């Protein structure tokens, strides 16, 4: 039997012990109405592995069962007022970015997340991360957006439409379905239109790529249109044009959300563009550097220094570090 889904895979969940996460997953699975004798036996095997397993299970069950004791729980859970869920968590330091004179609320713990509601009911959205940050933001419609480092999304939700713009960087969109309010995401080069689905957009200096994780989306430029389904990817190849629809490896393409950058036959220029969203120092390609060199590589954003040193050894490039920047040039 497979283990129930383990929480905490998007970087959103706070750190906790592996056992607690497993225990919660078991409690959720067994409370879901899907339990079978085989699953119950597997759970028993897990629980009796050690007293610590048993304690973790009881802790998770106590929380799940005790939720009915929360005062006014029925009001909390049926309250769809955006004010409450968007109230800032008290523990995290943050900066505020206030929209045009309107009251603003913070969406998420780190990075910047601002929603401002106008008198017409339209909601302005500004989400941004700094270099090195990966954050998931919860939106008022139930959608979630995960931003990679140095990335920014802006937009507006009205009664009739949800319009977002990926200003910079890369973002994973988990869009709540709302047929009455289609969502469009504009990257300047292209537009993506969806009802409810999950997809990834990477905006790089010379191209934009869309990878669909679930559902389907329509990608348009002034010249081209592509309908993509789960597993499809398309990249803009030149101004206003889209390349062919290709399949992609979701494990690698979407691994950045857990802090891992993975590339298959990707140009050095694109890899360095991504690295610059996480590196503590800017990485610059010198004018003679082989920006089109194709690489297949996978590494944690914590290991950027080691990776660059490795590239220096394995490929015809020189990597020179100063206090202010890292410069990659052609090896002589």
């Amino acid at each position, binding site marked *: 039997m497979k283990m129930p889904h383990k929480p905490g895979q998007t970087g959103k*969940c706070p750190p906790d012990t592996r056992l607690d996460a497993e225990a919660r997953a078991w409690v959720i699975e067994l409370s879901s109405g899907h339990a079978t004798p085989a699953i119950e036996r597997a759970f028993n095997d897990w629980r009796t592995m050690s007293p610590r397993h048993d304690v973790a299970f009881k802790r998770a069950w106590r929380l799940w069962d005790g939720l009915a004791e929360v005062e006014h729980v029925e009001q909390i859970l049926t309250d769809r007022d955006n004010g409450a869920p968007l109230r800032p968590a008290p523990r995290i330091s943050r900066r505020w970015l206030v929209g045009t004179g309107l009251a603003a609320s913070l969406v998420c713990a780190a990075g910047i997340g601002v929603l401002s509601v106008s008198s017409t009911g339209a909601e302005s959205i500004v989400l941004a991360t700094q270099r090195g940050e990966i954050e998931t933001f919860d939106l008022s419609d139930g959608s979630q957006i995960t931003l990679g480092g140095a990335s920014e999304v802006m937009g507006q939700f009205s009664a009739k439409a949800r319009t977002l713009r990926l200003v910079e960087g890369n973002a994973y969109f988990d869009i709540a379905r709302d047929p009455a309010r289609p969502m469009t995401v504009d990257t300047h080069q292209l537009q993506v239109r969806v009802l409810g689905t999950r997809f990834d957009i990477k905006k790089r200096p010379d191209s934009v790529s869309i990878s669909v994780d679930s559902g389907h989306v329509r990608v348009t430029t002034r010249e081209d249109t592509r309908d993509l389904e789960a597993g499809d990817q398309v990249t803009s190849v030149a101004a206003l044009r889209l390349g062919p629809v290709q399949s992609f490896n979701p494990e690698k393409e979407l691994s950045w959300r857990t802090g891992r950058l993975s590339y298959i036959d990707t140009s050095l220029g694109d890899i360095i563009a991504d690295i610059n969203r996480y590196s503590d120092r800017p990485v610059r390609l010198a004018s003679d550097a082989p920006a089109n060199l194709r690489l297949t590589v996978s590494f944690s954003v914590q290991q950027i220094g080691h990776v660059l040193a490795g590239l220096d050894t394995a490929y015809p490039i020189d990597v020179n570090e100063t206090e202010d920047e890292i410069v990659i040039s052609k090896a002589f």
Partner: protein
Amino acid sequence: MHAKSSCPDNVVPFSTLGETHSAAVSPGGQDDEVERTRFLNHVFRQHYGELVGRLRKIHGAGPPEPEDIAQAAFSKLAGVKDFKRIHSPRAFLFRTAINLGLNSRDKIRRGRNFLSNQVDGNFASDVEEISPETVLMGKQELERVSMAMQRLTPKQKEILLRSRFRGQTYADIRKDTGWSEADISRQLARIMALLQSELGR
């Protein structure tokens, strides 16, 4: 199932308590019975209307019908031998009614009974048999969970409401909302992680 009343003032359900619940009454004589009847009538008048209102927020018009599970919860309360040990009749009634609602769904009842038996080792009882002194979380813990719950997204609140309180399966929720079952599972995992992290702080 049970006679329904929309207003507690219209019904005095425990006036013949000594007869209807004789097995549950402690052998303390007539005074105890009088005290018990007074207590139950007081609790009924004070909490019945609110309890039905709270259940209606969760179940709508049903099924299960809020009046049905509210009255069944009062029957459970009347069946508690040592009613003086019930710390908060209001909380007891709400929790019991929620569990009765969950237990009206066979698949959910099975899982809940299994889990509950793992905790207390009691393989005979249904989960709704709540011991009156059972305290799952302390006041401060409940307040922390409440605050964390208020910060959930509307989507997360909807999923928690449907799964934990209405007893809907993932397939039920998918049918109603269009969200995928994998997404629902992932959201529940995230919700529980967020709520538990609040307790561990």
